[in-house]
């Protein structure tokens, strides 16, 4: 187990290092420099001072080493567009908003996904089954942000029953969280359905039933517990999806989180912020993936042995 965790951590660190390197050189390769808009009005001395402040006057390799060293200390420097603000402070300020929304979406996805999946796996009614299958097919195919726009129109413009801007009350969470959760709900429904259907045909389920265990206990203790593995392994990609989704959902619903900050920083060409946020978002997903892999290995020891 420890060996497995160490291996996963090593790959994680390597991934992060590569992402940092790529980010650094990509940002350096962008034509022009971050001050080009202001540079026209600057004297050469002031321009040189600015370059010196952000360390842009040093050779690229030296900049790279300094950048790596600082990033290890979580110091991503000062934002270029937002004068006087440290990138790290911006992340600390904005991250809770995104995490809150992501957490709500995660809970919705797991609860609804499992429920729908269980119903669809166990129901004897054909119309229930085909309804759930159709909905999950649509949910996987339709982009969450387009779904969000339709919901914004219906609930926010047409019926005026849900707010569509900001996150100031629990009601504000409903639409963005559902939009974020749309694809995870559908994926978890599908995974639960196929996995649980498989498990319920196993001999140990028949055995549990024949020993007189109540049907509910059979489903929860013997069925679901053994059917969880694909859902746990899906968690890694799901977190990546939630991070990606937050970029567009936060912009649509004007939510002041990391995602909106990230897209803004790209439009503003705020390179220090872009670099800091790219690494931060990458780090979150890497950590979440490692955690879900470890949990999966704990649930099913076979994973460590084979591929």
């Amino acid at each position, binding site marked *: 187990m420890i060996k497995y965790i160490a291996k996963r951590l090593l790959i994680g660190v390597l991934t992060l290092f590569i992402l940092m390197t790529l980010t650094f050189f990509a940002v350096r390769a962008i034509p022009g420099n971050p001050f080009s808009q202001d540079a026209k009005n600057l004297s050469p001395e002031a321009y040189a001072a600015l370059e010196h402040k952000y360390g842009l006057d040093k050779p690229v390799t030296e900049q790279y080493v300094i950048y790596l060293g600082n990033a290890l200390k979580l110091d991503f420097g000062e934002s270029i567009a937002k004068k006087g603000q440290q990138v790290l402070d911006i992340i600390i300020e904005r991250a809770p908003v995104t995490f809150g929304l992501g957490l709500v979406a995660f809970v919705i996805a797991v609860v609804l996904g499992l429920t729908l999946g269980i119903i669809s796996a166990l129901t004897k009614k054909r119309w229930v089954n085909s309804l759930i299958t159709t909905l999950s097919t649509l949910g996987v195919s339709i982009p969450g942000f387009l779904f969000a*726009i339709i919901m914004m129109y219906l609930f926010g413009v047409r019926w005026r029953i849900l707010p569509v801007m900001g996150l100031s009350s629990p009601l504000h969470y409903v639409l963005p969280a559902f939009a974020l959760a749309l694809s995870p709900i559908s994926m978890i429904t599908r995974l639960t359905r196929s996995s649980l259907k498989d498990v319920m045909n196993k001999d140990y389920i028949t055995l549990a039933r024949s020993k007189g265990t109540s049907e509910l206990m059979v489903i929860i203790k013997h069925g679901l517990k053994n059917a969880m593995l694909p859902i746990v392994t899906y968690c890694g990609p799901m977190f990546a999806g939630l991070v990606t989704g937050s970029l567009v959902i936060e912009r649509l619903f004007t939510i002041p989180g990391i995602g909106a900050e990230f897209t803004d920083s790209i439009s503003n060409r705020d390179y220090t912020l872009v670099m800091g946020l790219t690494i931060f978002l990458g780090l979150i*997903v890497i950590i979440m993936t490692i955690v879900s892999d470890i949990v999966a290995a704990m649930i099913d020891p076979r994973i460590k042995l084979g591929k």
Partner: protein
Amino acid sequence: MTNKELVLTEDMFELLDESEKNSEFIAIQSKTFSKDTWDRFKKNRLALIGLIFLVIMILAAIFIPMFSPYGYEEQDMALRNALPSLAHPFGTDKLGRDILVRVMYGARISLAIGFASAGINLVVGIIYGGVSGYLGGKVDMIMMRIIDIIYSVPSILYTLLILMVFGNNIISMVIAISITSWIQMARQVRTQVMSLKEMEFAMAAKVLGADHMRILMKHLVVNALGPIIVCLTMMVPNAIFTEAFLSMVGIGLDPLIPSWGRLADECRQLLFTYPIHIIWPIAAICLTILSLNFIGDGLGEALEVKR
């Protein structure tokens, strides 16, 4: 088994005359591979509907802008935000431009991006996955670790970096979308090649003196065409999705290029005043993605691809 036993006697049978025998006759005409696939594909009603929709969409994208009296940039300030009418079946946007023509231009751009990036994925995926699966051993392990590392960060981060470096034109969009999506194809090809290279026909080709390149391309990849085609079909909707996503967060194509994502973003800004406009781009994106998914599922069934 209370049935009376049937006793067969010699006089119940009669010998056939030599001329009446036609044991060599094959009643069913032999089918080619593509005919067989098509026959099975046709039985899947959703896939057939998807194919018909896609064909209509492509034809409309080619011909409607050719024969329409309006250009996609042609403004008519007297007729801004018009509702659908005979002259403008989808209405006009905030600058009085015909939405139908713009959606069809969008189809040209979005479908072109989709097919172009699928093409790149095909080439890169076959080469990478083919080499990795064919050589196996250490090379395979290293190549797969590289894929794992790229894959463990949300692909959108790489995509955004590429777009920042290369600007917001169509070619850099195609590159940015393809930068990570070839991985799925590479994995699929690798799995296929790994199992196919153990087959007798691969051995036979080797014994006959075929070089590695020929064995890989002529024998292994050709036999893996089913899964490759299915994987390819699924890449087009992914690319359309990514393009729309990027335009939605304000980082996509140049504002003057009327891609579907750009149109959806333009119309979204008028959601509170002219909500009807948003229907067209959303319907175009969702229906196209859905039809391509259905086609992919249908092909998967017809080609007996397990996914």
